[in-house]
């Protein structure tokens, strides 16, 4: 992977009335990488995409796409980009074949190449047999597969995919992940906007986490997870609610980085030395007559990274918007 930036944003901002949808975003996306743009709904991801694709103009700041300023050369910038929208954008009464054939035509593909690529894409997303159905007759997942086919056909320099596997079953999800990886191998840079953190973790070379229009943090998933104090996570499901003094006692252990009460009887403990501290934790629960219903150990996920940097779980952040 080269380290040449293909997209750069400079204090990129967008206001809708008094709302700062995107607030002074500074990002640099390298050519050939899969870049995850994470955050709950309303974090500003889609607004960033709309500004990069020149659909809306930034209120302040700017961005360059393959060297073209989105404000000064919007047409050139747009030629570099293909978008797979979160909500499939299909023409009203057409068939999947018509939708993709029209898209390929607008993207300037020759007749022969167009037919070849549309057929290939429909087969890849398992929609070949349904190519003549009207789009109204398709399920949400099928529509989404048509939407993703657009960038597979277009093979743009920069492919922006917004929630690419929403409404798609597990098998289909893995298939699409592989198709995105193949697209990258063919030379596309991929921006993956999602609030499915596991998807971002699996696919992305680097991720940027956004919250309330601001960039919170940006790095590789591994570095982000390593940056959380308390590499191991212990989730304890108690049979009854833990009193405050139990939480205070646990917080006093130097091996416990954070104690988080995710529900009234569920504690999430971020640990530094799991072997050393586990007996101590068990003793605290035993001393306070708190029977343990179940116990799970795990490594941190991007959900934990999000929670660490924002102080909120993704669900809580979602509710705040």
């Amino acid at each position, binding site marked *: 992977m080269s380290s040449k930036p293909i997209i750069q944003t400079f204090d990129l901002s967008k206001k809708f009335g008094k709302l700062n949808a995107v607030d002074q975003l500074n990002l640099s996306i390298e050519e050939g990488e899969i870049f995850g743009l994470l955050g709950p709904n309303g974090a500003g991801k889609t607004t960033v995409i709309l500004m990069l694709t020149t659909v*809306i103009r930034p209120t302040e700041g700017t961005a360059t796409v393959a060297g073209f300023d989105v404000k000064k050369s919007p047409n050139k910038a747009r030629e570099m980009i293909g978008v797979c929208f979160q909500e499939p954008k299909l023409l009203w009464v057409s068939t999947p074949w018509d939708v993709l054939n029209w898209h390929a035509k607008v993207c300037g593909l020759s007749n022969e190449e167009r037919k070849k690529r549309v057929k290939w894409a429909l087969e890849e997303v398992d929609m070949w047999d349904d190519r003549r159905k009207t789009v109204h007759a398709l399920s949400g997942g099928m529509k989404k597969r048509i939407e993703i086919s657009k960038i597979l056909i277009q093979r743009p320099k920069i492919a922006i995919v917004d929630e690419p596997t929403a409404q798609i079953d597990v098998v289909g999800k893995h298939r699409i992940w592989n198709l995105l990886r193949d697209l990258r191998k063919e030379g596309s840079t991929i921006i993956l906007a999602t609030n499915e953190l596991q998807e971002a973790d699996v696919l992305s070379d680097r991720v940027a986490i956004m919250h309330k229009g601001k960039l919170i943090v940006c790095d590789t998933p591994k570095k982000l997870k390593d940056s959380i104090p308390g590499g191991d996570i212990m989730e304890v499901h108690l049979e009854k609610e833990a009193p405050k003094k139990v939480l205070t006692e646990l917080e006093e252990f130097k091996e416990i980085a954070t104690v988080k009460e995710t529900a009234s009887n569920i504690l999430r403990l971020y640990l530094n030395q799991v072997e050393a501290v586990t007996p101590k934790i068990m003793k605290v629960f035993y001393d306070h007559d708190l029977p343990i219903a179940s116990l799970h150990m795990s490594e941190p996920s991007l959900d934990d990274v999000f929670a660490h940097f924002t102080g909120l779980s993704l669900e809580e952040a979602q509710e705040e918007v």
Partner: protein
Amino acid sequence: MFMRYKFMLIMRGIWFVSQVALFGLVVGKMVEAAATAAGINYFQYYVAGVTIITLYSTSMFIGYDIFEEAEHGVFEYLLTLPVSRRELVLGRSIGGGLRSFIYVGPLLIIVLMLLGLSNPLHFLVALSGLFLFAFGVSGMSITIAVAMKSGDKYDILIGVLDALIVRLSTTMYPTIYLQQAMPAYATIANFNPLTYASDLFRWGTGVEGTLQFTPLIGLLALFVFFFSFTFVGVVFYERRLEGGSWQ
């Protein structure tokens, strides 16, 4: 795609037939004496005018597409495509104009059967003017749709505009009668694209005694109309859309 407006088209067709077979015939009889004295066959005059009104209203359909696209989110998709805004608007207005010709085509054949075709060359010149007219109306419809934030408001505005633009033109009555009613009406009608389109169509189909402008002036006026609403519309479209105010 073309038959999305099936209901509207059927209604337009019924409207057209009733305007010609009922209103045109009855009013034609009513004003027969005065019209004949002025050298006009009013029925023929009126049929040609109603054709232009139908072409105008079907060319305005494209504005409804804009709202439907916004509602389905297709608008955003179109705006991300690797084509310039200019190409997009030009494509839409020409596409909208051509589509309206497909809609009006069968009616046009009926009209030609009613009016006859005395000079095919004149008719071809008139037809080229009507294409410019239809493209221009589509461009105007797109411009208005982009400027309005609500489909309901657009619908009401189009209704009012339709009433004004049709009545302040020579589609239904010659300028001389507009002049007699109020001189200002005739002045406005002289700047109305429907006046040029209907006059040119009458010339092209050989409806006599009604031509107010030379065909060349008619063609030029329609070209200016097409040019203004397509290219000025592009500027408007770009400013409006890229600011995100349509969202």
